[in-house]
């Protein structure tokens, strides 16, 4: 049960992405859905993954970790006490409404956040500045793309 302090400024409880190793198939669809969600093409043609991802090497913000029979998705956990925000030398990382966001204009590419993140959830983008999951909930379902596209409920978006 969420404590009251976890509610955001609208008085609502915080929803988070929960990954469940038990149900992860290792199909990597979340990576492609993430890459699509954050591609330039997804805004112009929201249903055309082909146009957005054809012939490119994707650089998603969620990544499948796998070894042997074990696999699970890893993306930003939007920590209560985020080390990345504390350590950012340029003030590019901020926590707003429980979501850690990155201001690409401010990022100086020092990679400090990449080093301090215990989960490996921050990585350089193709443009050089850092990128991370910022919860793409602005689509019709109000669910992040990785959650919406997971065929086995191994990634869920729910209140904790």
């Amino acid at each position: 049960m969420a404590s009251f302090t976890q509610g955001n400024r609208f008085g609502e409880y915080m929803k988070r992405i929960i990954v469940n190793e038990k149900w992860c198939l290792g199909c990597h669809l979340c990576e492609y859905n993430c890459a699509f969600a954050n591609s330039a093409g997804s805004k112009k043609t929201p249903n055309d993954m082909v146009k957005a991802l054809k012939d490119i090497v994707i650089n998603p913000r969620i990544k499948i970790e796998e070894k042997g029979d074990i696999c699970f998705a890893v993306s930003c956990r939007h920590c209560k006490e985020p080390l990345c925000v504390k350590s950012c030398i340029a003030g590019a990382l901020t926590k707003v409404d429980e979501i850690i966001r990155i201001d690409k204009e401010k990022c100086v590419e020092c990679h400090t956040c990449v080093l301090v993140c215990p989960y490996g959830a921050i990585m350089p983008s193709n443009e050089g500045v850092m990128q991370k999951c910022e919860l793409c909930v602005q689509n019709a379902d109000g669910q992040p793309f990785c959650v919406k596209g997971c065929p086995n409920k191994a990634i869920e978006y729910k209140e904790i």
Partner: protein
Amino acid sequence: MPIDFIYPEYEIARNKDRCIACRVCERQCANEVHKYDQELKMMVADDIKCVDCQRCVSLCPTRALKIVKTDNTYKQNAHWKGSIISEVYRQAGSGGVLLSSMGNPLDLPIYWDKILINASQVTNPSIDPLREPMETKTYLGQRPNKIERDKDGNIVNNLTPQLELSTPIMFSAMSYGSISYNAHESLARAATELGIYYNTGEGGLHEGFYKYGANTIVQVASGRFGVHKDYLNAGAAVEIKMGQGAKPGIGGHLPGAKIVGDVSRTRMIPEGSDAISPAPHHDIYSIEDLHQLVMSLKEATNYTKPVIVKIAAVHNVAAIASGIARSGADIISIDGFRGGTGAAPTRIRDNVGIPIELALASVDKRLRDEGIRNNVSIVVGGSVRSSADVVKAIALGADAVYIATSALLALGCHLCRSCHEGRCNWGIATQRPDLVKRLNPEIGYKRLVNLVSAWTHEIKEMMGGMGINSIEALKGNRLMLRGVGLNEKELEILGILHAGE
């Protein structure tokens, strides 16, 4: 040997303009059909391994895949069809019995589709199930033949143990071993939420599922796998399996490769040993022997649970059912020739047994004629595809139906009929841990609940249309049925009139 070459039956049609080489198809195919070619920088496929389970098609995020039947053809011949020629080649090469899975797929008559349901007009009003109560609850078990009273005139409860169903649909027997843990969990949880029953099949009951016992039917088959005192008492009823629609007259064989870990423990047999169910029960060679087993099981469960006897629909099914109705059994379950299986010899599956519609009609009539219909309830399975089939079955005389293929479809099965290979890409008919985890019971049980709830709504709509407000009033109500395109003999056996009559 080139003489053995059989061109792949199905071909992968990949739209190269839409493929983004995400390799989901490659990762999801346990048959290893798809592969990413580093040099060509594109996905390639080996059609010969494809079983057309549609897993890759379903998961492809860009709809770049479809599977098509090959147009490669032997010279056309009405008598020697391509599939028959291929089977001869396969057997000439292997010397073995052909194996198949799931129900008989041949183009044989489907009587459900030749039976139409009545509706009320003008003189007898139809009922709107959204406004008026509509009873789908049904009880299975023996009906008392007379009302008994004590010396003060009060009614004595002489009812034998019954099964109470919220809707006249149950999940039929599928053993743990033939299907996965997650498939069983989905069935058990759905049956519990729906207020119906699922059936363990002959593989015993996993210790994790004893908590669903109130909605479980435990099966005792010829192999007696996993049968012990707690097992018999865990369920709401005990089913003796004499036969199975997909393979009447023969036993079962779960290969040792599938007897691993929990399956071995649940079946109470050593790991890696083949689980062979004999064709007959070696202690049953007559109705009297069956009576003895029925009574033994009742004794073992302290006369608290109804006993079901399951048989396959075969030529003299009515006489067999008549014997069973006198054996002390509470419920007869009849499995038609379309019934599914995890593995059966192809020739048996495709050529043995009779359609359930005819078997049901003749059993119901025979038991009525002999005045013993109230001794037993009748449950039919092995072909029920929709709520309309359920309504027709009940009007032909069934008390409830068993569904299994439809339940598996709800869980993701695409009827590729390759269960016997043990590589089910949908996590159903497999024990490979990486495949089993593909079926999340959280999703699976909700889909089963959805399916049965949807059918129940439709059953109510159809009953309402007929002006009938309870399942009891529909049972054996053959006046609500008419045949189309059936000959006189078929109509006589079904006990229905032709449309227009």
